[in-house]
């Protein structure tokens, strides 16, 4: 099964390199969910995530002739995605002074715009608040720290892999991740003293959004 997939992937890549758009569209099916999920966590808005992923795929299509098969297609694609994310951050910083979504927008609008499983009947208010709080906390991180955090915990990349992808030292990645986790912890008000999980994850009084 895996071999068939690889064969079909290499065939699709060869056809797409020859300019076959249909083949490339078929290739996108394999990775579009993974790319979109990461973009959604990075942008925290469904519309921005869709724009960003379309840009990633278009860049990949244009650069596909440079793909030599040294690494896997997804590793190559992820590198394009990281550059697109960073450029999106720079562009967004110029276009919008503050792209951080408000918690109320995220809880009521963005989550509805990107429908989630949390909309099921089993969805609780606690889950919605947790999602909103985590997304808001992620939004307060600097873009590079947010990207490093997502690459580490969503993509499962190591410090060295992230450092290579971002063109920095592994120590820089480690520091950024340490700071990101510390900020998230502070923002989510996870206390060390309390052993009660519900208490630790509940919004604390210090949160101005609650």
């Amino acid at each position, binding site marked *: 099964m895996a071999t068939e997939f690889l064969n079909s992937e290499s065939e699709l890549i060869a056809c797409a390199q*020859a300019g076959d758009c249909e083949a490339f*569209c078929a290739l996108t099916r394999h990775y579009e969910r993974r790319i979109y999920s990461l973009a959604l966590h990075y942008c925290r808005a469904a519309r921005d995530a869709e724009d960003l992923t379309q840009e990633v795929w278009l860049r990949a299509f244009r650069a596909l*002739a440079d793909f030599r098969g040294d690494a896997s297609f997804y590793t190559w694609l992820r590198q394009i995605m990281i550059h697109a994310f960073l450029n999106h951050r720079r562009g967004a910083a110029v276009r919008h002074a503050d792209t951080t979504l408000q918690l109320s927008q995220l809880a009521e609008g963005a989550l509805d715009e990107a429908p989630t499983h949390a909309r099921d009947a089993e969805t609780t208010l606690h889950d919605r608040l947790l999602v909103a709080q985590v997304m808001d906390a992620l939004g307060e991180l600097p873009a590079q720290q947010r990207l490093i955090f997502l690459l580490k*915990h969503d993509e499962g990349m190591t410090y060295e892999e992230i450092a290579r992808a971002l063109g920095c030292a592994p120590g820089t990645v480690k520091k950024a991740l340490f700071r990101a986790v510390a900020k998230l912890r502070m923002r989510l008000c996870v206390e060390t003293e309390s052993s009660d999980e519900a208490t630790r994850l509940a919004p604390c009084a210090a949160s101005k959004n609650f």
Partner: protein
Amino acid sequence: MHDCRRTQAQLTDLVCDELPQAERVRVRAETAACGACHAEYRALAETLRACVRAETMVQPPEDFWPGYHARLSQHLQAHPVAPQTTTRTFVAGQRPTSLWWWRRALTASWRVPAPVAAVVALLLVVLSALALRPAPANIVLAAPPQVESAAPERIVTVPVVQEKLVTRTIYVTRRDQAQSRRTPQVSRASGAQLAGTAQEQTVERSAAPLMLTGFQPAGEVKLRVIKGNFTHEQ
């Protein structure tokens, strides 16, 4: 000896699974033995667990993807990419052509940290400025041309206030030449005596009427000037 600060500094690496096996076992053991470190570890782990849990909840449902893929395909087809005439994809067992290597060598680029690039650029500017700087003007005085003169060469010491080349054209009458031949010892006299003699002759000539008949300039006599100033005057 347990050090809480050292252990807690490694807790992020522990929850991110970035510690080597032996170090992981040691930090886990220390965390289990120390209440403060254990509470810190649990807080970090809980933070990451909450983030991962929230992220997994933010996932589009299945009915989102067909529309998304249709929009993506439409976007890609709206921006067609020209097919590559020369593909650089390697096929197993096939060697890349030399043209490919040349193209790669000519278009190669390296990622350089910005401070290093700035220092290299600055060095290039400085070196270029040094290389393009005009050379200092070296005044080389050409040796005076040796003039073959039929007239006897005399050494005359002339006091010079500043360094100057003095060239004088001396017109000598035949009578003076004959007189100078009769008194060869005068030419060997010192410069001061010569100067005095010349002055006396000038006075004599100014007193006697000049006879310009048959006067012909004797060739140009090059005087060798001994540089000096009043302190060196003899």
